[in-house]
């Protein structure tokens, strides 16, 4: 198995004056399902954003798909905590946004998408059991349905690494089961790496490996370590 995320002596945060966390050594392989747990404000989201290069690491090495810069287009799918959907657009338009991530801007403006792109969007919407909501604006959907739209957008993108920030929060157990099942179907069949951030230990147990960000007495910031849960 090849390494997807490789971090050594990594310090994360928004500025050198306010380091949030440190990762001594981390190796996540292709196809693994990993969860990161920790208290609120400990730096879990910042770590996820650092992997997606939305926040630059303060020091150390962070390689994603063997590169320290921005990863190749479309290989990372990021599901923010608040999902990042375009609320007044339809389910179809939101999922299409993921599917056309490799399309040129001219084709995208023209609105003439390839047949296979449109088929992929429809397939993904069907996979998430949202076919009956395809033309509904996202703002009219329930929390669980919106989460499924966010997953559909990411799946339609076809990423090799999915970073999901508390994407199972605020859902009832039944919906968690359905949403998780849909996600699992995709990652196992496509050998995709999934990194989820969770503050709920029960949900974090759904992953194969679990890491915890927590503060120790010697340091002002949190340290990432693998835990058995």
């Amino acid at each position, binding site marked *: 198995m090849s390494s997807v995320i490789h971090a050594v002596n990594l310090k994360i945060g928004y500025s050198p004056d306010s380091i949030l966390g440190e990762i001594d050594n981390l190796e996540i392989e292709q196809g693994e399902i990993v969860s990161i747990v920790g208290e609120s404000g400990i730096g879990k989201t910042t770590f996820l954003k650092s992997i*997606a290069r939305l926040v630059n690491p303060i020091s150390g090495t962070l390689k994603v798909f063997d590169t320290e810069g921005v990863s190749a287009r479309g290989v990372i799918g990021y599901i923010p905590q608040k999902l990042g959907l375009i609320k007044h657009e339809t389910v179809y338009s939101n999922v299409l946004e993921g599917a056309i991530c490799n399309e040129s*801007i001219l084709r995208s403006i023209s609105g003439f998408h390839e047949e296979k792109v449109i088929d992929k969007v429809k397939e993904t919407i069907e996979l998430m059991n949202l076919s009956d909501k395809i033309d509904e604006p996202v703002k009219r959907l329930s929390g669980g349905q919106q989460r499924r739209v966010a997953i559909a957008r990411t799946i339609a993108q076809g990423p090799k690494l999915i970073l999901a920030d508390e994407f199972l929060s605020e859902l009832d157990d039944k919906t968690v089961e359905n949403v998780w099942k849909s996600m699992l179907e995709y990652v196992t069949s496509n050998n995709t790496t999934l990194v989820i951030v969770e503050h709920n230990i029960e949900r974090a147990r759904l992953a194969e490996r679990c890491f915890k960000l927590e503060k120790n007495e010697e340091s002002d910031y949190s340290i990432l370590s693998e835990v058995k849960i």
Partner: protein
Amino acid sequence: MNIARRKYPIFLTFILFTTYLIFVDLVDGNWASLENSLENLSRFFRESLWPPNWKVIEARSYPSCERSWDFLCSPAYIGIMETLKIAFVSTGFGFIISLPLATLASRNLYSDSIAIPFRFLLAAMRTLPSIIWAIFFVILVGLGPVSGVLAMTFYTVGYLGKLQYETIEGLSNDPLDAAKAMGLKNSEMIQRVVIPETANNLISQLFFMFEYNVRHGSVIGIVGAGGIGYYISTYLKFLQYDKVIALLIILFFVVIAIDLISIKARSYFVDDATFKSPSLFGNIFRAKK
């Protein structure tokens, strides 16, 4: 909480007292000028303004009217139509120019080194009111509606650009983060995320700007930039105040009509819009819940 509440009367008293002092300073001891003001207004209204002279809705004596309905050759119709055309074209041009500038001025899309110069540019464009731009363009391209269009386009770019970049900056970071993580460039994010996400507000602002430009279109005509303001200015020069009041009454009803249509149209585009849009008069007279 109680301390904060007690501050309000003190603050209001301070504001009222300061306002009074500044007013006294502006009057500069010339209180006599205010003494007969009401009587003067009443006399001016009776002798010069009322009744309005409705000849403004009759055909002009020259050039001769070749249309079937005299009103279509009247100064009121020609002036209002020209004002509407100037407002429409300059709002359209202004929108097309301001949107790219507003995205460049948005600090959540571009770094300060790019955003700040564009903010200065937009601020500079709206620092001068449209009437000053009109004077400038009348000198540059001469009297007529073209200078009006140019003046109002410039002002629209400055004003609309500010509204637009504030809307863009008000966007939630999450959709932008998701798009950035996908690897989209700024130009792609603008096309695929920023414009769809802000479209309702941008269209609503466009309608607002059109309304605004119709109102100001009547002012810029006074300096020769076309529209109904040109006729108002001409009648003022010849002391035909009864014709001026007639044109102002017509303009008032046109502005009200545009306002009503605009409110109705905007109600379909604001975020909490329902498919059953509220009634026209309900929009104006009912308090927002």
